[in-house]
């Protein structure tokens, strides 16, 4: 136990080292512009989107699964809400609720398949990702739906007491998830289930129900991300934000979530989201190609996994 704890502290240390190194490097390369007011503000508007999606990815990963359909779910929620607002003429809150309801509807199917039919999460969410994206495409015919009421645009572009609204939403989601994972019985079950499902089952936990709720939660958070996203862009489309999928996995692993399940705490994940966003903004300021960025994400992820393995290697 002592060893495991020491190892996890080492992992946090590695993360901090990587963060410091990247920030200093990018700070020097951009001649300090990285931490200037403008880029900090753009970070504050962009970070929440990736952040909420990563939170949506985190709970499934804690149970040892993965959810490849979060982006598709977010887009579906966005598309439905957008249709509700522009074509059907629903009021803003009603359209948002409708979008979230559809996200949850698909999540029920997803959770059912994974929890009770025991389809592996990767395959179930892969299939549903294609399916959900297809539904959004059929609904939008591939076009962009734009032109939302001003009251809705506030969600993505407004500010509350000077704090950008998306950031407020992100903070609320993170706090909610933190309390849920660290302070409730459900949270404990999620960790237990991730580290040893058989033992958890014998301890009298309804594994399937916990898994089911996990995927509902994940889709709900994705739905919120979808709402923030369409409000931010003032447009909804079937295939926004696909590049975020790998990033969410990356942010989770970087933040100390064990892909095999059972380990990983929310603060670490939040830190790694901040890092990723700072690095992305830094790349942007340097005028580097986004493909280079995606190649480097892959390398960073592999690097962190490798370092963590080397540290943990002694006991394995």
């Amino acid at each position, binding site marked *: 136990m002592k060893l495991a704890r020491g190892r996890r502290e080492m992992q946090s240390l590695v993360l901090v080292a990587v963060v410091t190194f990247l920030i200093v490097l990018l700070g020097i390369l951009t001649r300090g512009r990285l931490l200037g007011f403008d880029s900090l503000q753009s970070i504050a508007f962009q970070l929440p989107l990736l952040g909420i999606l990563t939170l949506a990815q985190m709970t499934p990963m804690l149970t040892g699964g993965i959810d490849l359909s979060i982006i598709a779910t977010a887009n579906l929620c966005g598309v439905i809400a957008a249709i509700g607002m522009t074509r059907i003429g629903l009021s803003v809150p009603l359209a948002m609720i409708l979008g979230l309801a559809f996200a949850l509807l698909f999540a029920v199917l997803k959770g059912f*398949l994974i929890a009770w039919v025991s389809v592996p999460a990767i395959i179930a969410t892969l299939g549903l990702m294609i399916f959900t994206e*297809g539904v959004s495409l059929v609904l939008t015919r591939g076009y962009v739906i734009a032109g939302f009421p001003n009251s809705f645009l506030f969600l993505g572009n407004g500010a509350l007491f000077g704090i950008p609204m998306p950031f407020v939403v992100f903070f609320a989601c993170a706090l909610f998830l933190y309390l849920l994972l660290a302070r409730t019985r459900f949270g404990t079950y999620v960790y237990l289930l991730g580290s040893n499902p058989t033992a958890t089952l014998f301890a009298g936990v309804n594994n399937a129900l916990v898994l089911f709720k996990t995927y509902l939660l994940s889709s709900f958070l994705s739905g919120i991300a979808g709402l923030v996203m369409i409000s931010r862009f003032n447009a909804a489309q079937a295939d926004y934000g696909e590049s975020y999928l790998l990033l969410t996995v*990356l942010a989770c*692993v970087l933040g100390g979530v064990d*892909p095999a399940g059972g380990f990983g705490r929310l603060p670490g994940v939040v830190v790694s989201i901040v890092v990723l966003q700072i690095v992305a903004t830094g790349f942007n300021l340097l005028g580097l190609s986004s493909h280079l960025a995606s190649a480097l994400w892959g390398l960073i992820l592999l690097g962190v996994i490798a370092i963590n393995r080397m540290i943990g290697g002694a006991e394995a």
Partner: protein
Amino acid sequence: MRNNSFLGIVALGELVVLISGGIDVSFTAIATVAQYIMGVIITKYMVESVLLAFLIPIPIGIALGAFNAFLVNRTRVHPVIITISNLNVFYGFLMVVSKGKWIYGFPGPFRDFARLKVLTLVSEKGVDYGLSIFTVVWFLIAFGTWVILRYLPIGRKIYALGGNSEAARRAGFNIFRIQLFVYCYMGFLAGLAGFVHAELNQMIQPNAIVGRELDVIAAAILGGASIFGGAGSPLGVVLGVLFIAFIKNGLILMKASAYWHQVIMGLIIVLAATLSAYQQNLERKRRGRV
């Protein structure tokens, strides 16, 4: 048939990976990198020999596959995460280096090779059709994969690893060597498929293949490959690819909008995975395990 040989070849590679209990989503990037390097070389030096062109992408595929195997084995992180990272690494660097440029204008022999038919028939309307060389290659690969899986020791080891990795380890199998073979085989087929793809389209677009990972995995699963590892056969995969081809063709003939394709493909994957999981559950209940 001809147009599905690309899908068919990589699906066979994916089958082998799935049987071993892994998964590879980076093969599209491997195929693209391999065909791109081949394209650059043959257009720059106007390589006349198709055989030589054919020999370029394959070692590249194998090398990248070996890299996958190494990481999967050493990190013990789920292969899907490793190969997603590698997809980004390979593809990202390719895009940076190539700047997304297309390659066309291949040497003559390379162009003629694509029209090569093993068997030519003439239809009533006077249009000749026949068995393309690539369909033959695909079936040969399927047969080869079947022989490897069925009759060679390494084939049995792959099934054993996928069936129960702990048992395979305790039985003294060299897991790394099996994984090396599996991912290199996938890389080899990805390289070959990259060659076939370039031949079929007579041009190389860096963004043509990446993004089609899911079609291939769907084909392999439809063909009966279990995502848990340990089960699946080349014949099933060939049938799976043909099934998807027929459905797509049918949808096109029905004039269903392209957007519906995705909905239906998604449903098919979910259904196939559900059936496979359901069978597994029955099996488990019969054996009385938790």
